[in-house]
């Protein structure tokens, strides 16, 4: 299951009426939204949204029926067991070798503020201002020690760019930290603080 589907399913499972809803679904052959709503004392719209959501995730089946009136839907459980498994390895940076070969340096006129850590050999925070006037927002990113060391050794704007691997080596950051280094590089590149050449 991908993370987004798992998150949506978790959201439905965490609703305070979900347990009662599933008790109905597992015991009824099928049920309409209005029947479930009256049974659980919910607004029909709430029940309908819940069942539609579950149908979209494939947890329940949805069947259109006609009983001498306007057509409506009845729902039944697709399976009495719900498995929720997420493989977090999907988030691991792909192709780290190529990622570490990217040439980086600080972007000119970023307006970002780098706060030096007490040790003096790395940064502890990066503060980025986004927007103008009343819409201006401050985004403060707390850095891990390897990230702080990496950014401390990041080439200045217009300086000769260095590969991420070279900057890591200059900063004395072990290759084990390459994933978290790439994460901060990508984040700061998105926010216009780091330039990937």
């Amino acid at each position: 299951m991908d993370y987004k589907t798992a998150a949506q399913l978790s959201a439905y499972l965490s609703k305070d009426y979900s347990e009662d809803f599933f008790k109905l679904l597992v015991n009824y052959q099928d049920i309409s939204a209005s029947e479930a709503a009256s049974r659980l004392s919910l607004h029909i719209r709430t029940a309908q949204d819940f069942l539609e959501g579950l149908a979209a995730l494939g947890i329940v089946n949805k069947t259109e029926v006609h009983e001498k009136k306007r057509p409506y839907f009845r729902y039944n459980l697709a399976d009495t067991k719900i498995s929720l498994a997420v493989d977090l390895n999907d988030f691991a940076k792909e192709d780290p070798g190529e990622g570490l070969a990217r040439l980086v340096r600080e972007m000119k006129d970023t307006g970002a503020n780098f706060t030096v850590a007490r040790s003096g050999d790395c940064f502890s925070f990066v503060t980025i201002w986004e927007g103008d006037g009343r819409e201006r927002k401050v985004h403060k990113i707390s850095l891990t020690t390897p990230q702080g060391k990496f950014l401390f050794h990041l080439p200045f704007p217009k300086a000769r760019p260095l590969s991420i691997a070279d900057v890591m080596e200059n900063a004395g950051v072990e290759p084990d930290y390459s994933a978290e280094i790439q994460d901060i590089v990508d984040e700061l590149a998105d926010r216009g603080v780091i330039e990937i050449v």
Partner: protein
Amino acid sequence: MFYERKTKDKNIIHYIWLPISLFFMFFGLLATVGPSPAFYVLGVVYLIMCIMPLITFWRTRNAGFLAVSFFQLMVGLVCLSAPAAIEDRSEIGLIPVFLVAMYISMLVSFYLLFNRKLKWRGQEIFELAAMPVEDIGDNFTARPRPAGQVPISKTEMIRFVDFITVNLIAFAFREDNRIVFVLTLPGNDYPYILGLKKDYLNDTWVAIDFDGNVSVNITEEDYLLFKQDLDFDQLCQSLGNVFAEFLELSKSGRESQIIDRMNALRLNPLS
């Protein structure tokens, strides 16, 4: 040695405002309320002023400031003794002694002043750092930068800190794992000397930790001191190199060469 100056001098007003103010104050009082109040006020001002060089001596151990303080003390005593002697010549008291001491200490002070013994060397350091740097356009960024490594022992560091401080090359902040040398220009040293400034975060500094790692920070204000848009990356590296070179000279006992290098720039001793 011929070289192209890369830093701007401070406005002359910065170092003549005090004597001009005293001059106008003294003659203003002389013209309006007479000589006695004018001498008394000037004397009190000089007595107060003589405290500042004493504090500077206490913070830097630069003995030249004792001469300046003594000169100002003598001027103060002469001014305070003068009104009585003007009214009655028999009340001359110790004025001749004060005058002789004042002239001698003045000569010593001027000698030290024009030989740059009382001058904060920030601008000279900037000149030395800027020498090998190209003008390739403004690329300033407000963050520190690592600038290499120099092997150093704690004893060598202590000796270097003492040398840098006594010779007014930089103001040293001692931290747990490193020494931070804050570059100060003449006139910008008072907040540090008086202890009003407890940190260096908004100043230009060079830090050397006890593992020998050098890092450099140059503020925008100091970057604008340069006449050209020097490559900021090269400038920071060069500033670190200047300190690393000074450290090597200090380690080998050739500190006089450091002073010679700065004096060879022949910058205005007052600026």
